[in-house]
């Protein structure tokens, strides 16, 4: 296992290198040194702006994740996600995370809208350099399904959930969907 001090010592000759800053940030996040991770992710984004687009995009999503982790910094979470989307609008991850952010804030129209927007870009497959909790196109449908119910679109919501259950999705999503269907229609046969 590479130690954080070794990473930084090795990077000290080239501290404006976005890849090295990104690697330090990932290590900080792993060590739960969240404020430090913000520093290095933001440096990766700023110094990589013209040269390392996926590093920049991922870093901004990670900045949002860090502020979410610290809690009670909602303006900073949404700002970082909007910056990621603005920087690379033809990828789905930022839309999903913003949709989920609005779901958690119970801002249902925003949740629905950003889920819908993300669905326009789900064919892009090249991988990001770190996990940003985007598990595939289905997560956008999930957000749309949840927000649809709160927006009065009960039938649309149920249809999305039943369609999702036909897909190969992770267990925690499957159980949540079943729970949601039960809450919508206790007599439903799942």
């Amino acid at each position, binding site marked *: 296992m590479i130690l954080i001090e070794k990473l*930084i010592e090795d990077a*000290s000759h080239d501290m404006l290198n976005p890849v090295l800053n990104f690697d330090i940030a990932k290590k900080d996040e792993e060590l*739960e040194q969240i*404020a430090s991770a*913000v520093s290095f992710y933001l440096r990766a984004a700023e110094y990589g702006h013209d040269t390392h687009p996926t590093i920049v995009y991922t870093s901004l999503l990670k900045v949002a994740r860090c502020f979410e982790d610290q*809690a009670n910094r909602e303006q*900073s979470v949404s700002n970082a996600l909007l910056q990621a989307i603005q920087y690379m609008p033809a990828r789905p991850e930022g839309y999903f995370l913003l949709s989920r952010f609005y779901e958690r804030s119970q801002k249902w129209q925003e949740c629905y809208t950003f889920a819908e927007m993300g669905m326009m870009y789900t064919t892009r497959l090249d991988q990001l350099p770190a996990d940003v909790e985007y598990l595939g196109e289905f997560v956008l449908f999930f957000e749309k399904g949840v927000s649809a119910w709160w927006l009065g679109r009960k039938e649309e919501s149920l249809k999305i959930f039943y369609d999702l259950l036909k897909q190969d999705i992770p267990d925690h999503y499957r159980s949540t969907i079943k729970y949601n269907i039960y809450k919508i229609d206790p007599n439903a046969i799942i």
Partner: protein
Amino acid sequence: MNLVQRAVSNGGKLAPLVISKGLTRGTGLMNPSVFVNDRGNILVNLRHVNYTLYHSENTQKFPSRWGPLSYLHPEKDMNLRTTNYLMKLDNDLVVTNHALIDTSKLDVDPLWEFVGLEDARLVEWENKYYICGVRRDTTTNGTGRMELSEIEIDMDSFTAKEISRLRIPAPGDDNSYCEKNWYPILDKPYHFIKWTAPTELVRTYPDEPARCEQVFHRENLSIPADQRGGSQLIKFGSLYLSVTHEVNLFRNYLNQKDAIYRHRLCVWDDDFNLVGISPEPFSFLDARIEFVAGAAILEKDLLISFGFQDNAAFILKVPNVVLVEMIQEALSYDFN
């Protein structure tokens, strides 16, 4: 070349100063102050804050909602709160113990939004440990004064408790708004360099009533940039050393604040005459905001403790060969 690279490529070492997220909730650890006592124990005062500093660098494409430099405190708590941890390191600079300094005996409800003792330097004077920093929460307008907090340390159980607190008036009529970054002289109890150049040396006292007097004020120095307090003033052979900072505070066209901090090594003679200063400022890790609050000699090497963007804390061992070079560079500076 930044100082970490220079030190490490000559046999030095960088070490992070961290404590677990369970204690910090993931917010900033910053501006550590290292001190080595006469038993060889490496102690550090580490500042923990309830915010994350957000600083866009380079061309600032991704500012926060409040600009390129913001203190991102909890959105439901406007206060910028500081607590201090005492740490003990082994000779490899690995943290072996840490404890929150218990200030409960002397804490009162804060009257302003900067809460706690900020950027405290750790010293031992007359067999008592003190942390000396600025406190701004005792008035409704944020007046800052240096405070001398005596810390009782139990090395066995590794606990630290503040047992007295003295708010130091400014010398003279005590009408300034904010006094901070006075740097303590380790082998001259209760004395501080209040200002580097012109040099102002002041004396305080550990007992009531709190008082402070100017020992001398020397006007005769021309230095490359205004130097503000950083590390303690430490003895090295026949010289004294301090690491000081200079800051460029500015605003962009939207009137949003921004800043760049850099450091220099200052060299002093036995009479506290400034006799050398790094001709060029240096950075530690090329961040625009870094801050030194401590230095110590360990064997023949120099330990410097510094904060990185208010979000991370490090200690750097500068090997003797680099330290001697830095002193020579400083002594080569032409004050005329």
